[in-house]
């Protein structure tokens, strides 16, 4: 009864084993808790385990199956939520001192829908404070390490989620992506990471960073897993007015696809080895029948500057709610003004830098020169994508210009860290779906990520291409060496 699947099994393969009655959900979840706890010892990927509620849910799932009920789409599949996604089990701290001990009174819509689909929450993962960073070194709790090489960063801000996905199969991991925070850590850790179309997944219960850019998405072993998880949590939500009404549909067509290769995605700054691995992946898809087309997205070079203005402006507004009055840690003060200031003094250095820049670009006299201008450039970036998708089905390029770098390498130089996001921010500004999947290892044995973009609303085509690539290759099958042991 408890033939546990192999450690690198995908969530779907694990689920099939559960459905076939080969694998006991309680035994599997107990084992999964052990392996991610073991992985955490070397990577510091977890903020906490939600062991008690996980085992309660596992027993309930096993009882359903024993009673002969039909398995739900994610029956018994373990998952974690990034620490900025509200769960009623455990705490929701966004890895910020100001939210130490915060226990949400409600569950994010995405989490609630996944649990209704049978998935079992097993823990909360580490992140850069409020999602602001690209290395998970900005967490106020701990820095996470890359399980491929422990002296390297896992990327960020969903670094904890990516490290666990790299360490062991079966489960999936919810992250959030404001400028690449799912895709870049997925690339650095050799796993699949999907940022859905803006509005595809409800943001209700996601602690706001930049509301016009934020999206929740999964980090998984495979593109097929990402599709199942997306199907379970996508859809309109009365608690998030920006959610899409039209449902997402898989692309079941067998028509050959046109893949656009933007010249700007291989511009200066992209490591030669990264570019070579990504071009090799494109060649494999071409050999499989896809047509490659060179395209141009001329405003790509302005995307990161645009992102810095738009995102920090929204940070300044969103994080004004943390004032020490209604929730969070309060700084001692004799009057209300000092209370605000002393409470907000608990923000980390990077969050403070972003609040300050955002306050400046929104301030009287500078609003038009910075914020309003960035919004116009955002339109031009969006039009670049619209023009490209008039002629191709997906766009292909690297996820990150560089391989995972050593811990401490860029943390003292914020602009160097921001440069890591140069290829991922455009998708958030344009609202299009994008996905990172592993396409090989560099000479140091570190993962390289291939990024695909599709038109707004077309996750179906995005996942079709990614799934086909994973049929042709086995990069997504490889676990990181500092993993959680054998399943």
């Amino acid at each position, binding site marked *: 009864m408890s033939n546990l699947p192999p450690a690198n099994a995908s969530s779907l393969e694990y689920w099939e084993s559960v459905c076939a009655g080969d694998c006991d959900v309680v035994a599997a979840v107990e084992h999964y808790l052990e392996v991610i706890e073991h992985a955490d010892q070397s990577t510091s990927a977890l903020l906490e385990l939600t062991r008690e509620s996980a085992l309660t849910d596992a027993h309930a799932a096993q009882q359903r199956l024993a009673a002969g009920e039909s398995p739900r789409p994610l029956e018994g599949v373990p998952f974690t939520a990034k620490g900025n996604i509200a769960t009623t089990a455990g705490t929701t701290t966004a890895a910020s001192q100001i939210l130490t001990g915060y*226990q949400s009174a*409600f569950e994010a819509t995405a989490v609630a829908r996944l649990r209704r689909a049978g998935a079992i929450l097993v823990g909360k993962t580490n992140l850069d404070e409020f999602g602001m960073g690209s290395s998970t070194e900005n967490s106020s709790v701990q820095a996470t390490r890359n399980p491929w090489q422990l002296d390297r960063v896992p990327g960020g801000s969903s670094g904890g989620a990516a490290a666990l996905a790299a360490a062991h199969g079966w489960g999936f991991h919810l992250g959030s992506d404001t400028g690449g925070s799912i895709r870049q850590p997925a690339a650095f850790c050799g796993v699949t990471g999907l940022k859905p179309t803006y509005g595809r997944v409800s943001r209700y219960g996601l602690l706001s960073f930049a509301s016009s850019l934020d999206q929740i998405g999964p980090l998984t072993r495979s593109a097929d897993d990402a599709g199942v998880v997306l199907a379970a949590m996508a859809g309109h939500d009365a608690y998030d007015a*920006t959610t*899409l009404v039209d449902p997402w549909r898989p692309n079941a067509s067998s028509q050959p696809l046109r893949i656009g290769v933007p010249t700007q995605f291989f511009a200066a700054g992209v490591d030669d080895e990264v570019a070579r691995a990504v071009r090799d992946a494109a060649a494999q898809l071409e050999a499989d029948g896809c047509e490659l087309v060179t395209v141009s997205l001329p405003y790509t070079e302005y995307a990161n500057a645009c992102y810095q203005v738009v995102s920090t402006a929204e940070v300044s507004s969103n994080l004004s709610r943390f004032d020490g009055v209604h929730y969070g840690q309060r700084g001692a003060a004799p009057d209300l003004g000092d209370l*605000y200031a002393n409470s907000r*003094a608990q923000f980390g250095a990077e969050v403070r830098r972003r609040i300050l820049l955002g306050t400046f670009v929104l301030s009287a006299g500078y609003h038009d020169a910075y914020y309003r201008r960035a919004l116009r450039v955002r*339109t031009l970036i969006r039009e670049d994508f619209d023009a490209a998708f008039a002629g191709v089905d997906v766009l292909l390029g690297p996820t990150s210009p560089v391989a995972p770098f050593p811990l401490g390498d860029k943390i003292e130089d914020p602009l160097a860290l921001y440069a890591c996001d140069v290829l991922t921010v455009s998708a958030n500004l344009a609202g299009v779906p994008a996905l990172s999947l592993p396409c090989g290892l560099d000479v140091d044995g570190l993962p390289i990520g291939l990024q695909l973009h599709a038109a707004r609303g077309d996750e179906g085509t995005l996942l079709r291409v990614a799934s086909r690539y994973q049929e042709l290759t086995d990069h997504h099958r490889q676990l990181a060496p500092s993993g959680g042991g054998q399943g």
Partner: protein
Amino acid sequence: MSTGSQDAANGAGVTVDERGVREIAALAQLPVQDSEIPALVRHFERMLEFVARLEEADRADAAPALHAPRAAADLRADVPTPRPMDRDRMAQNAPDWDAPFFVSPPVI
């Protein structure tokens, strides 16, 4: 605001000096220590130089994109819809709670 601004209208040559950082911090209700100021001035200098390139990309006829394009639902009816929230549980996160009030230091 004291920013050493040369041309606030288009952002060209704008710098933020020590006094400017303090004023922005006050607007943001963020305390900054004297020791932090030089690094923040340098950070503003680098960031404003970095984002100044938006000027060359800007096109006056482009409409500002306030949000991502979407096909969202119609606006809901403007009527209260109670959410199933547990008030007591929410209050547990309050730093100081004297039901049904949040307690803060005096304003005046």
